[in-house]
């Protein structure tokens, strides 16, 4: 339809993006939302079902109290109002992964409303409004067989597993977020990151996007700059990682700008995000918006959380990320940007723990954001998943500070720990990785280097002190990096002075 593509920068000249996010969180309760089946990711198909989550004729739902508690927790952490009385509702539509062909959800009476989440992006705080938080049940999972890509299009048939059906989901819907301009994609990503961290802190979900326990749909629209009129929004699904959130928003902005530039209108529809190409394609048209014929769920009675219970839950909230941020910024004298770097690397916990066992904040940050972040990236994991403890890192930092190790040796020690060879001290001992502190050993290497490089020695004696670097390098090589480079240079100058 639209032909010419538009660059992001170009699009932002003429249009103001507005985005919103709908996030589904699988709660980490032991059992499902309406029955006592255990949640089990990756189990044999249809091995964790019962008449209720299979929707067998005659079955009835009973609400999991812990799920309500978790949802209230989330609402409170998002500064939302908790309903004093609300009901579940049936959302009616036919689809094979929904055993009853209706989903028990909430409609016009969500459990929590009207909150916000402050998001730190590029050194400033953006307040993302939260429209609502409500509870619903998850659907089963389908395998589509016969098509080229395993997707629905072109499949010959589908195979449905209902293990996931009935797992409690909390849906968090933001209010539309205008005014982020150029950084819209970043802010969207930062919101999801912040939300994820908060949910992890609350311990209500393991929030793994790659496992589907945190799912995002992104809504995007463009407003012509200065018009004050908001555009038609599209919904993008299949956004499976933080990076995809950013890319999806960016891609939709570019696409919609091109459509509008060409004089066409943006169609209100659901789009599918493609990881490989980074673009969205058209899915189902939402123009004829589906009528879900919502009505209050007659098999469940209303939920009226007693104020004492809500107060109890409030009192039990752990330190939330925003509070922690304030605390650490002060304790470690960090700028917002420095803090963000830590948070984005997923290193906050490990750095804090490393400081707790004695390292300085600067050292802890240096190692976790430097060498370890690099290693984590190479292995495709989070820093927190590396097989090295904050205690070990603190020890390495200590050894470097005391001069027993230099940076190069320290990296080798870290390698050893990551390889599973033991504690830093054990690795040092096993490989003899201590800095050579014995001058006599160094002198031997120095004499060899001097003898081997007469022209360099001549230049040094001539006054070209920098040339000493070559000798230092040779000694470092000879000692397999185990020398303190500064000390080597000192000794060389002493030697040559004599």
């Amino acid at each position: 339809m639209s032909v010419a593509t538009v660059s992001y920068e170009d699009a932002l000249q003429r249009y103001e993006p507005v985005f919103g996010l709908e996030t589904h969180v699988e709660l980490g309760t032991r059992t499902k939302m309406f029955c006592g089946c255990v949640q089990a990711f990756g189990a044999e198909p249809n091995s964790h079902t019962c008449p209720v989550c299979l929707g067998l004729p005659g079955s009835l739902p009973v609400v999991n109290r812990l799920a309500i508690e978790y949802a209230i927790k989330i609402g409170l952490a998002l500064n939302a109002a908790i309903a004093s009385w609300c009901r579940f509702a049936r959302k009616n539509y036919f689809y094979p992964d929904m055993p009853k062909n209706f989903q028990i959800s909430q409609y016009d009476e969500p459990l929590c409303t009207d909150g916000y989440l402050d998001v730190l992006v590029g050194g400033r705080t953006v307040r993302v409004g939260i429209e609502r938080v409500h509870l619903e049940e998850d659907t089963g999972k389908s395998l589509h067989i016969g098509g080229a890509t395993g997707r629905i299009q072109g499949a010959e048939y589908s195979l449905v597993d209902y293990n996931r059906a009935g797992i409690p989901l909390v849906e968090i819907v933001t209010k539309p977020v205008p005014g982020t301009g150029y950084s819209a994609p970043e802010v969207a990503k930062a919101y999801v990151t912040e939300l994820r961290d908060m949910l992890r802190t609350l311990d209500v979900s393991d929030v793994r996007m790659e496992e589907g326990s945190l799912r995002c749909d992104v809504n995007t629209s463009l407003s012509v700059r200065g018009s004050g009129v908001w555009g038609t929004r599209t919904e993008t699904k299949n956004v499976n990682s933080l990076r995809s959130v950013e890319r999806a928003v960016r891609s939709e902005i570019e696409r919609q700008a091109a459509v509008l530039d060409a004089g066409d209108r943006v169609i209100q529809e659901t789009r599918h995000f493609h990881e490989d190409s980074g673009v969205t394609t058209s899915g189902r048209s939402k123009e004829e918006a589906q009528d879900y014929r919502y009505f209050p769920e007659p098999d469940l009675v209303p939920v009226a959380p007693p104020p004492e219970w809500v107060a109890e839950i409030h009192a039990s909230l752990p330190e939330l990320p925003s509070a922690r941020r304030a605390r650490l910024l002060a304790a470690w004298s960090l700028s917002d940007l420095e803090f963000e770097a830590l948070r984005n690397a997923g290193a906050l916990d490990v750095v804090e723990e490393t400081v707790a066992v004695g390292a300085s904040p600067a050292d802890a940050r240096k190692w976790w954001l430097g060498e370890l972040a690099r290693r984590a990236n190479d292995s495709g994991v989070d820093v927190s998943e590396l097989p090295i403890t904050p205690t070990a890192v603190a020890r390495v930092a200590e050894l470097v500070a005391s001069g027993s190790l230099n940076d190069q040796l320290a990296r080798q020690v870290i390698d050893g720990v990551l390889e599973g060879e033991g504690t830093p001290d054990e690795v040092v001992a096993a490989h003899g990785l201590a800095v050579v502190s014995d001058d006599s050993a160094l002198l031997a290497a120095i004499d060899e280097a001097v003898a081997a490089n007469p022209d360099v020695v001549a230049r040094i004696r001539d006054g070209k002190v920098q040339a000493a670097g070559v000798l230092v390098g040779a000694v470092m090589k000879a000692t397999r990096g185990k020398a303190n480079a500064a000390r080597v240079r000192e000794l060389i100058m002493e030697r040559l002075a004599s």
Partner: protein
Amino acid sequence: MDELITMTAAELSAAMSAGKVSAAEVTTAHLDRIAVVDSQVRAFLHVAGDEALAQAREVDRKRAAGEPLGPLAGIPVAVKDLFTTVDMPTTCGSRILEGWRPPYESTITRRLRDGGAVLIGKTNMDEFAMGSSTENSGYGFSRNPWDLARVPGGSSGGSAAAVASYQAPLALGTDTGGSIRQPAAVCGIVGTKPTYGGSSRYGVVAFASSLDTPGPFGRSVLDTALLHEAMSGHDPMDSTSIDAPVPPVVEAARHGDVSGMRIGVVSEFSGDGYQPGVMARFTEAVELLESLGAKVTEISCPHFKYALPAYYLIAPSEVSSNLARFDGMRYGLRAGTGSAEEVMARTREAGFGAEAKRRIMLGTYALSSGYYDAYYGKAQQVRTLIIRDFDAAFGQVDVLVSPVTPTTAFPIGERADDPIAMYLADLCTIPADLAGNAAISLPCGLADEDRLPVGLQVMAPTLADDRLYRVAAAVEAAFTDRWGHPLLNEAKGLNA
């Protein structure tokens, strides 16, 4: 007829306890009776046969060993085919569930089994409990034992017919708009709709979730109370189940007494549309109550006349959603080829009967955006007004009385394709369903025109189920005195 099949459950229980007869003999007698008459009555969709005898023998063994037994031990109970049973098919009277064997048991049937009751078979019903004649069954209609050319009422027609023809002393039914009381009335037996939430709906396939109430049928008030008590009580598997002790219905049934009771006659339930013979018997019943010491007044419940349209909005709305799961994907019938959507539509087309289709579409309409407020939403408001009418009435009287249904049993086929005429059978029974109150139907005589049974309806406030039995027992005793025998003895033909 074998004496064993004409005895009441109470009498059978006493006889078994006294060692005069074994549970196996009782069950055998009833299975024999089924073999003789059910080809005509067609009350049963499935007869348990050997399994029933095995249950009975187990009761005898337990009794001999001195193990504890429930009050209904060894008593055959017929089960409306809406309750899930693991050892018998559960069809709900629909072709869409033909042969379905549930992998789980309903709470009520499990409790009855645990107490030693013998579940003798599954009975015919209007498809998914929608109807007033059992003609909507996907497996053909059942017949009224009083006159085989007439309907046994519905939707629990099979259960009522089974009890009325002595094929079982007790039966389970469900009442959503009158589906226990109306069949009881037209078959000349006793049937109760307990307080909503008083009996568990877990394993009772849902028709209208906020109205469905499982309940008992019996040939006497005491028998009905015995089953009422055994099947009722809180169930944690049902969120709408009331967590309170079962009202003392058996105690009340043993001590029928209306002296000093204030009884209200619902003035809206009379007039045009009511068969004269029905009104005549009802009037006599009211006079009887007065003669027994009750204080009778007329009470107006002005919103009751909107109960029927409100019900025919709320029930179809809920059922349109409850029946969505029947799509050929996970169980039951699968028909057609092509895409999932096509197979779903073909399956439901082939598996559902006309009434089910009408109500599904009606419900879809009433819940549609744009129509919700005017139809479903309005009906829910009417429901509130009806509850208030009851509250106001019960502020003045202890129970309300009315006819159960405007006519006696109508001929098979007469209203089968006239939905609105069919719906009128529920006129008097619906208000109690909408409000959740308890109500009972018991025989009060035969209509002069056709010599067919007429039922008296008594309605009590929620959780006052025992009050129904106190009144019913008094009326039953007085009428039996007057007639010289139970009304059922008047039924010719089959019951000879």
